[in-house]
């Protein structure tokens, strides 16, 4: 089961600021709800885990992340992530290409293309949820990312963003309200999704 997600997210900050968050996997991982880097096994290889909680469903995926390309001149980063859940009954992988592009009025735009593949029990029985969950995760990721970039800036907006970063929930489920607001909004404005 594959879910393809294409997202664009405008950020009111210079491209270089966004790129500094994007290129640092440790910081980047913190933007992902429930995700963390647990170790570094090579120059561009890391181990990490993601805890996903959807309603009563709770699952912890552990695996490897490989940064397969960093293009400083085009602010583009590519990574492959692979993992399996703790019970060994589901596998998941993600290929992501993300780049920072110049936006309007000195701002920038984060452009992400990802393909998420899910195998095993999650795909067998959770298929109807995967679409929505992937979408939710990415949307939240984008919001967190944006906050981190903004927090590095100055002024009131930066302070507010820093506050949100500090309060950023560890898992997806606790940010229901916020999520509820952004999901429909983002999907209509930026999102297009395709699943197979």
């Amino acid at each position: 089961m594959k879910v393809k997600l294409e997202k664009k997210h405008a950020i009111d900050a210079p491209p270089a600021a966004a790129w500094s968050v994007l290129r640092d996997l440790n910081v980047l991982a913190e933007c992902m709800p429930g995700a963390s880097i647990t170790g570094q096994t090579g120059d561009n290889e890391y181990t990490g885990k993601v805890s996903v909680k959807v309603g009563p469903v709770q699952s912890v995926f552990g695996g490897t992340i490989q940064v397969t390309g960093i293009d400083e001149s085009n602010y583009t980063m590519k990574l492959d992530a692979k993992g399996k859940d703790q019970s060994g009954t589901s596998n998941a992988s993600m290929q992501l290409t993300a780049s920072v592009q110049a936006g309007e009025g000195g701002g920038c735009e984060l452009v992400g293309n990802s393909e998420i593949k899910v195998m095993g029990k999650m795909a067998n029985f959770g298929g109807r949820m995967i679409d929505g969950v992937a979408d939710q995760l990415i949307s939240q990721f984008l919001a967190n990312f944006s906050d981190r970039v903004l927090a590095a800036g100055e002024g009131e907006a930066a302070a507010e963003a820093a506050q949100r970063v500090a309060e950023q929930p560890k898992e997806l489920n606790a940010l229901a309200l916020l999520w509820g607001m952004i999901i429909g909004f983002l999907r209509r404005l930026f999102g297009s999704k395709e699943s197979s």
Partner: protein
Amino acid sequence: MIPANFDFHAPASVAEALSLLAEHGDGAKVLAGGHSLLPMMKMRFAAPQHLIDLNGIADLRGIKREGDTLVIGAMTTENQIIASDLLAADCPLLPEAARQIADPQVRNRGTIGGDICHGDPANDLPAVTMAADATYVLQGSNGERHVHSADFFLGSFYTAMEPDEILTSIRIPAAKGVTGSAYVKLKRKIGDWATAAAAVQLTLNGGKCSEIRIALTNLAPTAVRVAAAEEALKGQPIDDALIEVAAEHAMAASDPTADLRGDVEYKTQMAGEMTRRAIRQSLARAGG
């Protein structure tokens, strides 16, 4: 198909349940009818460390009328809803929908509260209670609060309920005037989840639609109200052209997930068709 182990708690009161919930926090899960949660636990998608069974709390069961409001305890089973004379008279939409949920055995266990709190877009009662203009009563350690059904569902399996809260009752305004309602559900077979379903409740006044609510099941990440359709019909005599307008709005409000039951196009089209049928039936029942 064996659940992981857990500690079991069977509180006798809401207060006791809330204190257990506060004590065990994130590792606790509330058990109502169990026909969503237990299968998930058996498949090991869910593995709470503490299960707090609400079945022993008598206060959470029963259907009564308080003035113009019907109050349904959250642990009232679907079969109790079907059997209720009060609902048959004052909110027939609810028993009509309950009859279309699962099967007789499941309806003996399945509760209105569980159906709503689970936040599953495929569950029937979220859309139905939305169409019935319901308000949910939540109790938590900080007391009681009321959340309108239209504001409760935030995403797939995401609701406005806080982890330390319990849904205690559902409050529905009793039908007034010339009303008609219908829940029309397209499904592969009896008891199955909706491929698409529409709940409609409307009031006629002098041949015109004075009030209407339309909500859809399993056509978006949550049950959805089709506000644009409601606006279009309100204050009008409902004719075929307006029904068509409502169906178009229902389709526009749909954002379904493709599965074996249908692709996005089919489900979207069925959102329209179920809406047409539900409005027509409601009109017929209202004598319009």
